[in-house]
């Protein structure tokens, strides 16, 4: 079990390094001297030059890369051009918010998807299963931001149950936190939950066709018992992959929902930084997101190793 994990970890490290090069290279393509953009409309050449040297934008690229990359490692990628604020803590603050959102949305999605997916699979030949399956298809088809807009219109504006926007830290006021987070979470989870439910359905259907499930029933288990005791672990294998991919999608997809609900998460910071041409910030955020996705993939692989004993011994 250790060796495959070590091997996967090596791949993770290599991927992080490679993608940091990609991200860095990508940002060099951006037109416009960040110093000029930062200084605004009619800044003097002298001012632009001073800022260029101040931020070391005229140094050779490898030096700039090394500076940034080693900064990332120490969680201190530098300061912003315009506001001169340290980037690291900002990203950390915003990431925390996004993680809350994504975490809750994922939890809700899973909570919806698993019973729903199992139900759809077990009852796939019955009317209720077919109806649910169709409903989940529609859930997949609705853009998350549209769901958000409509939910706001109904539950915030019309019914006044919850606020339409803003973010309250859970430590600050748990009740307000819950209220402010419920709609964004639902908007995100609605789509992802539907997608996940469909994968759960097909994973369960696949498992239901397996011989060992028939063996389990021949032992005297009812279909649901058999599914629970023997199917869940096996069905989890493909579902875990999808959940990993979804977490990645959510992490970035939260951008849109953060916009709709005016939540100061990492996605909002990314968009703001893009429009302010805070390249270093953009670069660092992109890197954080990419690393997050890579780490999620690594965790998924590690979970595989735990779920599927066939991988531990290198068989298969």
């Amino acid at each position, binding site marked *: 079990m*250790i*060796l495959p994990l*070590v091997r996967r970890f090596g791949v993770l490290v290599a991927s992080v390094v490679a993608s940091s090069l990609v991200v860095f290279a990508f940002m060099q393509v951006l037109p416009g001297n960040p110093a000029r953009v930062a200084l605004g409309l009619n800044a003097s050449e002298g001012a632009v030059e001073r800022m260029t040297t101040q931020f070391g934008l005229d140094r050779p690229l490898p030096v700039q890369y090394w500076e940034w990359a080693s900064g990332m490692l120490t969680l201190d990628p530098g300061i912003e051009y315009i506001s001169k604020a340290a980037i690291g803590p900002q990203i950390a603050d915003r990431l925390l918010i996004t993680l809350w959102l994504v975490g809750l949305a994922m939890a809700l999605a899973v909570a919806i998807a698993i019973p729903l997916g199992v139900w759809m699979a077990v009852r796939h030949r019955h009317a209720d299963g077919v109806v649910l399956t169709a409903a989940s298809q529609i859930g997949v088809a609705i853009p998350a931001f549209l769901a958000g807009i409509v939910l706001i219109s109904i539950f915030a504006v019309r019914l006044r149950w919850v606020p339409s926007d803003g973010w309250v830290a859970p430590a600050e006021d748990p009740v307000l936190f819950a209220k402010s987070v419920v709609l964004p979470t639902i908007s995100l989870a609605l789509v992802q939950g539907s997608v996940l439910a469909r994968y759960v359905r097909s994973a369960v259907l696949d498992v239901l066709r397996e011989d060992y499930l028939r063996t389990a029933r021949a032992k005297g288990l009812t279909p649901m018992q058999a599914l629970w005791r023997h199917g869940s672990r096996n069905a989890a294998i493909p579902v875990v992959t999808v959940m990993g991919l979804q977490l990645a999608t959510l992490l970035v997809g939260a951008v849109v929902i953060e916009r709709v609900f005016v939540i100061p998460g990492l996605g909002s910071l990314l968009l703001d930084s893009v429009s302010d041409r805070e390249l270093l910030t953009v670069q660092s955020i992109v890197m954080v997101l990419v690393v997050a996705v890579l780490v999620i993939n690594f965790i998924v692989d590690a979970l595989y190793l735990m779920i599927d004993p066939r991988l531990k*011994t*290198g068989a298969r």
Partner: protein
Amino acid sequence: MPACTRWAPIPHPGMGHAMTEPILKLTDVRREFRRPRTSLRTPPPVVRAVNGVNLEVAPGERLGIVGESGSGKSTLLRLLSGLDQPTSGQIEVQGRRVDGQSSRQLKWLRETMQLVFQDPMSSLDPRMRVRDIIAEPLVAAGMSAAGKREERVVTLLQSVGLPKDAIDRYPHQFSGGQRQRISVARALAPQPKILVADEPVSALDVSVRAQVLNLIDNVVEGFDLTLIFVSHDLSVVRHVCDRVAVMRRGEFVEVAPTEELFADPQHAYTKQLIAAIPTLSAALGGRTAAALADEVNQQAGGENRD
């Protein structure tokens, strides 16, 4: 039917027969597979799928290879048909080297040796029409005139007992036995000298098995082929082949003319194999499962394992 007497048997030295040049010759052929490492301390496990095989096959001979699952039969076939490279050893077909050659250099081998596989489902490309399947070796051999190819395909279809109009159909429109016929037709297309069959009837029902065995018998006879026939079923090999090689854990434990092998098996493993075959006659004669198992255990001398 002169097949039984025509060929010069067994290339054992000292047999006294004037030996024709062997059409196929294997010298100490080995193939190892490295499994992925499972631990940092122990070296990666090595599977010796073929472990020092020597063999000579005379033209026109029908050689059977038997052995249990995983004994290396398929690996050996892949080696001698140039689809895989041996870790060491030499393989010669008609005196020409097969090992260490690039696929470009092996063009001649494709026209000399052809294969028939076990699974009638997966050995034919489901998206190709029978016409294209059978013509594939011809295309590969560079026969470019479509008309001539078509003519040949029709002839081949006839010789394996399929109607002309099968030419435009897809594999899934045929039964298992018919698919094996198509496989055989494809193998015959480049007019090979050697036919290599890897468990060609193991996946077939008894009634169909008989049909395919008859077909193989007929084409080997009719086209004057050398046959290498792999099976785990001793009774099939016994029916088809003149000589049998018993394979176990990558090695030939015994090679002998069929009747000799059955009448007087030398190696314990061969004995065990023969003893384990359930036959209708023996069963009707009162051999129970317990008796069968007893015999196997006896031959194995206690070294039995699954």
